[in-house]
């Protein structure tokens, strides 16, 4: 990289786009603060996981081709989601056969795709943030980011730099919350057992704020916490790191 500001293509992810735009803006703020120029291609939609994980390879390929076209040409592509970033980075190249021109394009895109927090720390060398928040928080390690991309220490490092934030480790923070994309609607009872166990650990941590890096998991855990009448607030880690907490927490009442 030259000294000029890297151009980032923000892959918003469909859940952030539809349900929680504030996460997208927090991502933009963090990226800009770390010296990047952020662009948001209008032609992006979804990364293709619904088809890919349902065994529908053809439709997954069609959506992957559309995403590749939308996101090509940037220095980096960054997504505020371990799961969607892993789809682009780890799975797109495997969707196409050797020799297929799309495989090369997928590989090229995969090489420059990163999950937001790991990008800030590992690529941009960010040591801390200037945000302040007086709160007692705990953090859930979402599976794809953790196991497919190695996102583990980076969010903790940045969260520890937030002034006023007390971070307590969640028991079994690496165990799946039971979201799993379509799993939670295909096997609602098993998913419920998993998220119930997760919520028990969250409550036991004593924290009043739950953070994670993937909106799917956050919706699942927030949905269960709210159904149970819990007072624990739920936010995407980027919102806290960007000091971007004017929106009510996920699933909370609005004024």
């Amino acid at each position, binding site marked *: 990289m030259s000294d000029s500001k890297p151009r980032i293509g923000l892959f918003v992810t469909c859940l952030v786009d539809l*349900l929680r735009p504030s996460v997208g803006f927090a991502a933009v703020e963090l990226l800009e603060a770390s010296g990047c120029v952020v662009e948001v291609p209008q032609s992006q939609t979804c990364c293709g996981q619904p088809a890919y994980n349902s065994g529908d390879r053809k439709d997954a390929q069609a959506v992957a081709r559309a995403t590749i076209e*939308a996101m090509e040409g940037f220095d980096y592509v960054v997504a505020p989601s371990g799961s969607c970033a892993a789809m682009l980075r780890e799975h797109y190249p495997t969707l196409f056969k050797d020799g297929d021109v799309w495989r090369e394009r997928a590989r090229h895109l995969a090489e420059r795709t990163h999950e937001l927090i790991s990008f800030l720390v590992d690529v941009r060398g960010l040591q801390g943030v200037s945000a302040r928040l007086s709160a007692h928080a705990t953090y859930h390690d979402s599976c794809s980011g953790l196991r497919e991309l190695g996102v583990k220490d980076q969010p903790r490092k940045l969260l520890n730099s937030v002034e006023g934030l007390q971070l307590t480790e969640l028991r079994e923070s690496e165990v799946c919350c039971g979201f799993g994309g379509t799993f939670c609607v295909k096997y609602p009872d*098993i998913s419920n057992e998993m998220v119930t166990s997760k919520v028990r650990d969250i409550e036991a941590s004593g924290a009043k704020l739950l953070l994670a890096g993937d909106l799917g998991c956050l*919706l699942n855990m927030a949905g269960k916490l709210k159904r149970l009448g819990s007072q624990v607030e739920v936010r995407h880690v980027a919102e806290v790191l960007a000091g971007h907490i004017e929106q009510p927490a996920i*699933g909370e009442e609005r004024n």
Partner: protein
Amino acid sequence: MQSQSHAFKERSSAALQDVQLQKALANVKTGFIDKRAAAAAALPEFDALRDAARDIKNHTLAHLDLYLERYEEKVIASGGTVHWCATAADARDAVAQICRSAGAKTVTKGKSMISEEIGLNDHLEAEGLTVVETDLGEYIIQLRKEPPSHIIAPAVHVTREQVEADFRSHHKTLPDDRKLDEAELLVAEAREMLRQRYLEADVGITGANFLIAETGTSVIVTNEGNGDLTQSLPKVHVVIASLEKIVPTLEDTCTILRVLARSATGQEFSSYTTFSTGPRRAEDPDGPEAYHVILLDNGRSAMLGTEFEEMLRCIRCGACMNHCPVYHAVGGHAYGWVYPGPMGAVLTPSLIGVEKAGQLPNASTFCGRCESVCPMRIPLPKLMRHWREREFEKHLSPAAVRSGLSAWRFFATRPRLYHLGGRIAAAMMARLAGRKGRLKSLLLGGGWTKHRDFPAPEGKTFQQLWAERQRSEGPAS
């Protein structure tokens, strides 16, 4: 064994309601995991050993025919017999024939998943034989007339209190005042009951963790020593193993043994690791007079050269199920056949067909914890995804899923329509939720809202707000 895998959903719902089962499963969630982690941490070369173990098996599978032939030669040279069995029925018949020839009345058995796979006990009992399981877990489930729910801890679904009750009702000589409130006391009680059985048995049947091509040796790994008594006291020893158990050399076996017990129970080595080569020799003080190996295919060779070949590396340590949150929630019986958990979700459709077992590879969140602990580095989520693809290609997935996906693809590949639809959906849902910020029910989302609220959208989509921001900042900014 008759498969119930098609009923996974119903079986798992029943399992979630089963208070005793949930109590028993709590032990799987902690014990195995902590012990494996400690054992792995204590061995700096653990991950390098996993790579070596994977490479050994990959090499073996690439030359499986050669190693199997070599193995048979060596078994014959040591005085044993190999029975090549293509199907479960072939294997059952071969064992029954051996028992008949030996004039057997009582058969003792060490733990063997293959014998569960081929339904051996029922078959032998129908032939008039008394079959006695000698592994404590297998003995317990035999009394309970249940199949195993775990591949290394067959009775992990049973609580200690239930075992005590089973022993009190089945062991006629057990005095009422005898205490059985600790695991050790239960073990002692079972041991006493089994002792006479070992001596009575005419045939001893064991499984095999490995078959060594270099020497024609079968290897069993146990913690109770029951396998040794099963195979060395009767006149005839029958080993039942599937053909992917083969490894080229003694040294390869030792490499894989180093990851096996650590992954399974967190032990550096299991209490007993027993190598058997042929029947007793003239100078041997003990051992069986005859040594037979039932070498079972039952669908394995059809996996070679396919995307499922990697599954044949599995050494049946159970680490994947010990770490699987779905297994923790529902236990092994929900999977409806011999092999539960993530390894079962890949192996079962391979052996009995995706038509019958398609639910299993779908019942995963793809959290990847199984792959992260597999000592043989089997990419279990990837293989489950391959099964989902096969299912989709065969039009076995539900019509609602298929039409949903094609509608989704239509929009996902047409950004303008997609964003318009998204704007409308987000605005409508936000309005429906009102100030509450969440929805109690969702059209088409009953699976979600049965157990949780659905956090409402903020109102406008990110793309909408971003476009507004770009406009307000003007093109020059």
